[in-house]
């Protein structure tokens, strides 16, 4: 039996992650209430990506998982980004 060393995330760290996520949520709300033109979307999406990154790393334990799993997640993100880029090249230069 290959019992992998399991990593137990402490309750305190879980709570700290939640606090960070809540702060970022409030930041999104604050930023989008100011009129910044196209920067509103950019800022909101950047913060959302940061939040998703935090959840993937800590809540979904990617930090403590095998490197292959992490690479797979990165690949999916890249595939999805490529999909967005290709779609918008099509629509912007039609």
């Amino acid at each position, binding site marked *: 039996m290959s019992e992998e060393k399991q990593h137990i995330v402490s309750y305190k760290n*879980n*709570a700290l992650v939640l606090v960070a996520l*809540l702060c970022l949520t409030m930041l999104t*709300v604050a930023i989008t209430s100011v009129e910044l033109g196209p920067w509103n979307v950019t800022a*909101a999406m950047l913060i959302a990506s940061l939040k998703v990154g935090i*959840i993937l790393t800590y*809540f979904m*334990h990617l930090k403590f998982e095998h490197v292959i799993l992490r690479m797979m997640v990165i690949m999916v993100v890249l595939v*999805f980004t490529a999909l967005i880029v290709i779609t918008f090249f099509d629509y912007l230069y039609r």
Partner: protein
Amino acid sequence: MEQTSSHSIEHRDDTASKLGMWLFIFTEILLFGGLFIVYSVYRYKYPVAFHLANQELNRSVGLVNTIILLISSMTVAMSVSAIQQGKKKLTITLLAITIFLALLFLVNKYFEWGIKFQHGLYPGSSILHELSHGDILFFGLYFFMTGLHALHIIIGMTLLAVILAKVKNERINSGDFVLLENGGLYWHLVDLIWIFLFPLFYLIH
């Protein structure tokens, strides 16, 4: 190959089952990802209609639901820590809180949609059809994407309830808890999707 004598212990491969769960999560990400692309293309094509229709949505309901989901993500992450330490009671409590928060999310969603329905805004309604093309697309995407997300909440709640029952009768314990981990992963996925839905539908004007 590992040469173990034939005891009647069932064979488990926790890494493989987690890998399977992740593969499933990837398909879910691409499912919602496709919808997000549809949303952004139409937003690009109908900026004015999307801007105005956006203001119909209630920011604070969206914000409350975001906070609810973030907290529930933490409780489910904590329940994994609890089972790892063999704290059965705490695991059950944390799972129960998560399911309760999921229910709260759906109640909010019910009232939010209910008000829209009262104003005659629902897919296929006559009022909606008199609006512009962009409005129809916005509300169509809003109902479909948040609806599909709500369906995922219901599935996640059911899954967590099954897991809770299994923790109760010790089918899930400190030595075998991969199902709880996978259920947790599913729940975090639901949270991830909402993190993008919330600013796109409720915040950006």
